[in-house]
């Protein structure tokens, strides 16, 4: 038997309140792409953090090429040839792309100081290889999530490593960039470098992975070659359910068509401009309608949603809700008018990490839940209780800190927060990013359910399948302007791609 590149034996790791990993063993062979899957909160990220020196396991041993090792910190793991892309893009937002990319490996001039010319040249060279052409001197935060993810990827791969760990690298990527990534992974494999790959997108796993380990509730539920495992079986293993049951339910939870009322638009954005990212964007959503926003990374979808939600200073254009114009630049006014945004960046703009699940849900609706400035705990408890049940939020108690929940459950908390305000229109920016198949289906079902109740939904998703199945109508953006609109039978993946790629002037 070949020596394992990295092996974990009997690893346990607990946090206050949960046992995130319970006696997990894991073995990675050379030149293999090894998938690590499981529901939200199954312990994937925790296992990766144990393998790479972020956490110390409570029990168990690590073996690097059959030698026992302990990593005190990520640096130690890096020195041992393990390079990692962590789940949340973990780069420094204020620093330039180049400095992020080459931090710790800056080229030096003869005087021993950093040679900045060479630094930028090198960074530009690397990024071009990943299909990113941008000024590498720009601060990272001025770049879209997708570009940032590519930088993280380039950084991890360009470190001389024997093992590259990728925790949900594609959740912020477009199909094209995913292709680039897979090209890189193929190269790595051919060089004999192993890859641990975590993703909730099952198609991807079947495209590139050799082997799979399924985690469920902190335990190993399955371990074996991936091609021997049918997709439904994999999902069943993750969820701990019967494959037959899964087969009945289908791929996405969307039912497809809604009974779109031809009534007055609930919300209407007219010629919204917001230099330099948006030009003349008009979108409307009618009651009971799910409108998709399509486009590539940086096309301005998030900006459109934020402009409608009053979270961006708009240069021109109006937003009306039920015929009434909403005050510009005030999220509070938008919420009062019944428009609520669930932002794409959960960590930075969504949850308030210091507060409990309960307080996070009640946050936006506080004015409605209090009388003369004093909150009514009874009313809060009632509403929190009902949403936690309805959205099936998994938490030890409503008083648990929201930062301790898994990604999918945090997402549901944000949905609950929006719904608790009594919103008539929901703007959902990547609502299923980074959440597991089970939770994804639940969220999708929920969107359907809400639309059926007469809510208007604006859905932004990089997952084309989700967009096609979920939306009644898709508005496609390119370079901050509307490139086209598709409805009814026109809504297909091919049509969306075609609209994005069309170079000439399109109607709209």
């Amino acid at each position: 038997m070949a020596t394992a590149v990295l092996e974990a034996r009997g690893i346990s790791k607990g946090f206050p309140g949960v046992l995130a990993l319970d006696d997990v063993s894991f073995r990675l062979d050379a030149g293999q792409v090894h998938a690590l899957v499981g529901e939200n909160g199954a312990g994937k990220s925790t296992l990766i953090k144990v393998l790479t020196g972020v956490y110390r396991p409570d029990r168990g041993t690590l073996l690097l090429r059959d030698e026992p090792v302990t990593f005190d910190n990520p640096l130690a793991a890096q020195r041992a040839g393990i390079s990692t892309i962590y789940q949340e893009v973990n780069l420094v937002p204020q620093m330039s792309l180049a400095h992020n990319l080459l931090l710790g490996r800056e080229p030096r001039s003869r005087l021993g100081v950093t040679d900045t010319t060479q630094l930028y040249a090198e960074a530009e060279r690397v990024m071009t290889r990943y299909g990113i052409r941008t000024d590498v001197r720009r601060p990272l935060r001025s770049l879209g999530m997708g570009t940032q993810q590519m930088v993280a990827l380039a950084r991890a791969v360009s470190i001389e490593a024997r093992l590259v760990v990728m925790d949900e690298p594609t959740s912020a990527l477009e199909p094209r960039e995913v292709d680039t990534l897979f090209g890189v992974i193929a190269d790595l494999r051919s060089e004999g470098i192993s890859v641990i790959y975590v993703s909730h997108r099952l198609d991807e796993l079947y495209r590139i992975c050799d082997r799979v380990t399924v985690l469920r509730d902190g335990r190993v539920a399955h371990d074996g070659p991936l091609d021997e495992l049918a997709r439904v079986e994999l999902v069943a293993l993750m969820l701990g359910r019967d494959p037959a049951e899964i087969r009945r339910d289908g791929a996405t939870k969307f039912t497809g068509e809604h009974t779109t009322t031809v009534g007055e638009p609930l919300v209407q954005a007219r010629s919204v401009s917001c230099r330099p990212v948006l030009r003349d964007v008009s979108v409307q959503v009618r009651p009971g309608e799910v409108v998709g926003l399509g486009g590539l990374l940086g096309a301005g979808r998030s900006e459109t949603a934020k402009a409608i939600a009053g979270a961006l200073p708009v240069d021109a254009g109006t937003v009306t809700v039920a015929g009434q114009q909403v005050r510009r630049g005030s999220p509070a006014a938008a919420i009062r008018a019944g428009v609520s945004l669930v932002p794409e960046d959960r960590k930075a703009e969504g949850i308030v990490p210091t507060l409990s699940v309960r307080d996070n849900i009640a946050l936006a609706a506080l004015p409605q839940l209090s009388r003369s400035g004093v909150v009514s705990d009874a009313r809060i408890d009632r509403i929190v209780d009902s949403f936690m049940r309805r959205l099936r939020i998994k938490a030890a108690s409503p008083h648990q800190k929201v930062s301790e929940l898994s990604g999918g459950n945090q997402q549901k908390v944000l949905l609950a927060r929006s719904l608790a305000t009594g919103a008539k229109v929901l703007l959902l920016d990547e609502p299923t990013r980074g959440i597991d198949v089970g939770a994804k289906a639940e969220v999708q079902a929920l969107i359907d359910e809400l639309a059926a109740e007469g809510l208007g939904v604006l859905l932004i998703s990089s997952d084309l399948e989700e967009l096609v199945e979920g939306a009644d109508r898709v508005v496609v953006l390119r370079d901050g302007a509307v490139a086209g609109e598709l409805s009814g039978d026109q809504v297909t993946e091919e049509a969306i791609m075609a609209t994005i790629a069309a170079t000439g002037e399109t109607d709209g």
Partner: protein
Amino acid sequence: MTTTTDADTGTDTRRAPGMLRRERIGHLLQHHGALMVLAVTVVVGAVAFDSFATPQNAANIVVSSSFLAIIAIGMTFVIISGGIDLSVGSSFVLAGVLAAYGSRYGLLVALLLPLTVCGAIGLVQGLIVARTGMAPFIVTLAGLLGMRGLMLAVSDEGANTYLVRNDAFSALGQASFLGLTVPVWITLGLALLGGVLLQRTGFGQNVYAIGGSEEAAVLMGVPVTRVKVLVYLISGLLAGLAGALNAARLSSGVTILGAGMELDVIAAVVIGGTLLTGGSGGLTGTMAGVLLLGVIQSLINQIGVLTSSFQQVVSGAFLALVVVTQRILHRAQRLS
């Protein structure tokens, strides 16, 4: 800089140059806003007061600012790393007393004693901050108290002012070269060195990374503990050096110095465009900030007719004006 639109990758680059210019301007304003405000203040002062723009007054401002400047260099490192060092005022006075005491055993002791003690305390503070995760504000506040206590202990509860009787050491504070005293040259050298360290070495980039996002820095393999410890060590050493040089200038270990100095230093750094949240800033701004404080003080003295209480009102208002101006410049750039 790439200006082509690369349709193939779908990465948007067409807007890059435009945003870049604005970013550059923003960068300029944020980092050199203090320099601009400084220039305006100097011009206004020169027009308004005859005896303001004299070489001697300029030299006075530069010389008396140099000690604050040396400390501010260290503080800039600390603040960029996302920390703060309240202990510098106490380090400054303690170092002065130790240097004066040490000067009776020769130049070397006069320099090494304060540097060792202040460096060691900086090191300990850094270790506590880095290892325990306690707030730097509190750790260095304890440092402020503890070092002042130590200073009182070594000076017989402040009753004993050691005098410098070593000419070589005195020269360090008093001799001048090309019209400027040695501390000014040392300041310039340190600012230059600090600038290179910060901008052009891996260590400097690590400091920025930790201040920008400590979590990310850890995951990117930055030796966070070591960098943090070093940053507080630098701050302690520089405060110690400033204190020692000041003792050489004053020829004695004055015990009543340094109270509230940390706030002046922090103000200078922040006026210089370094954000207290960490991750951005630089030394040019800090130097401008230090000079700005000196110039404001000198202008208030020039006005002359103000009562001492009114002088305070004016310096408070001036400080507010400067930071507000900077904010507005910064914002105007962002919204344009």
